[in-house]
């Protein structure tokens, strides 16, 4: 009889053969689930089954069948955030182009002139391309867009954390979408919706700007890349251009929202990377990480 996905997950976490895990098995007494394994269990259920389980519902008396019931009763997470219907319209593209020229770039030039290198690597490329950069502060996106060749500058979409722009700063969402053409990409849990949105944009020949760390670096060092980075690169099948950014966090330091001083931002493009379908996402993530670190 085919074992349920939950039993496979429990077998992986508890290191017990799935044949020895039954519906009446108690998670703590029989499978020896400790606090760390409980976290792993909840994370795996969310990742593999798309269901968020309240950890508080797992106690020493909980059996496998209780957990199966919780999973059945809990609806799968819905895709709450989508690409706005208007943001890709040619008229909006034109408005965005004008806003870049008359507001965004002149303001950027006052606080943070941008110096660029490596543009020769972009000469033979055309949309769609995925640009992946280290993340230092909110100036990263405008700095990169500022120095992209026109064919990319006017055709780029920015993957943006759903919990930040689409939830925390939702009052500013439409203005940011208008100016930067952002689209929602979850940082946590199931990233399927982010991948689907990216695929939709790439199919329409939009290029993507993506920050693999998922958040700004507080320490100044490059954070560990999200595991979805390599998956995205392999799945989308288009060139990935690594980018390194310096200088932005000195202008807007961590936990600040406004410039503290004027300074120069440096943007360096690296050699494009190409990924074969058979490459694993971990291998691809590592390659991209090395490419950005090496710039």
């Amino acid at each position, binding site marked *: 009889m085919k074992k349920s996905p939950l039993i496979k997950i429990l077998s992986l976490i508890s290191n017990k053969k799935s044949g020895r895990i039954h519906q009446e098995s108690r998670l703590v007494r029989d499978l020896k689930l400790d606090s760390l394994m409980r976290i792993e269990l909840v*994370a795996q259920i969310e990742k593999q089954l798309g269901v968020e389980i*309240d950890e508080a519902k797992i106690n020493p008396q909980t059996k496998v069948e209780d957990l199966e019931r919780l999973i059945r009763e809990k609806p799968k997470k819905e895709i709450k955030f989508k690409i706005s219907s208007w943001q890709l319209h040619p008229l909006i593209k034109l408005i965005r182009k004008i806003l870049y020229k008359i507001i965004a770039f002149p303001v950027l030039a006052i606080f943070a002139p941008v110096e660029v290198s490596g543009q020769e690597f972009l000469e033979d490329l055309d949309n769609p391309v995925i640009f992946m950069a280290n993340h230092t502060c909110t100036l990263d996106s405008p700095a990169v867009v500022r120095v992209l060749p026109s064919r990319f500058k006017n055709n780029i979409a920015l993957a943006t954390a759903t919990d930040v722009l689409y939830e925390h700063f939702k009052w500013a969402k439409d203005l940011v979408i208008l100016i930067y053409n952002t689209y929602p990409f979850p940082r*946590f849990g199931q990233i399927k919706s982010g991948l689907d949105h990216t695929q939709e944009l790439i199919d329409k020949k939009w290029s993507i700007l993506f920050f693999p760390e998922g958040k700004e670096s507080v320490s100044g060092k490059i954070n560990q890349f999200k595991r979805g980075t390599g998956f995205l690169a392999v799945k989308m099948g288009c060139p990935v251009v690594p980018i390194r950014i310096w200088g932005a966090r000195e202008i807007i330091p961590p936990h600040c929202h406004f410039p503290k001083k004027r300074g120069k931002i440096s943007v360096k493009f690296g050699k494009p990377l190409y990924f074969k379908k058979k490459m694993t996402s971990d291998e691809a993530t590592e390659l991209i990480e090395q490419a950005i670190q090496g710039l």
Partner: protein
Amino acid sequence: MKIKIGSDILQIKKFKAAFKKYPEKFERDIFSIRELKNSEISHLAGIFAAKEAAIKALDLKPGRSWKLIEVKNLKSGKPVLNFSQLADKKNIRSYDLSISHHGDYVIAVVAVLLK
């Protein structure tokens, strides 16, 4: 007055593997931004053990409780708990926390004095 106690022991190697595998889970649901600033893995393992020990001592349910309890270090290095939202609700008069590392293991003990 009542004394309640909780403890937790953790193998740092297993914690490191879980943290590497599910960083988003730990960032979103377990650790605060301040706790994550010191990203040295054995330190984070100690914080995790301390939180679990506090959850046990206070008879809390895991899940939302992780983020209600914060572990920080005084200038002397002594770890302390910050759980102001819970202190009144749980009638906590005082408490103490101890974290100890030995090889690949870390253990945390929390003792709580209730009113």
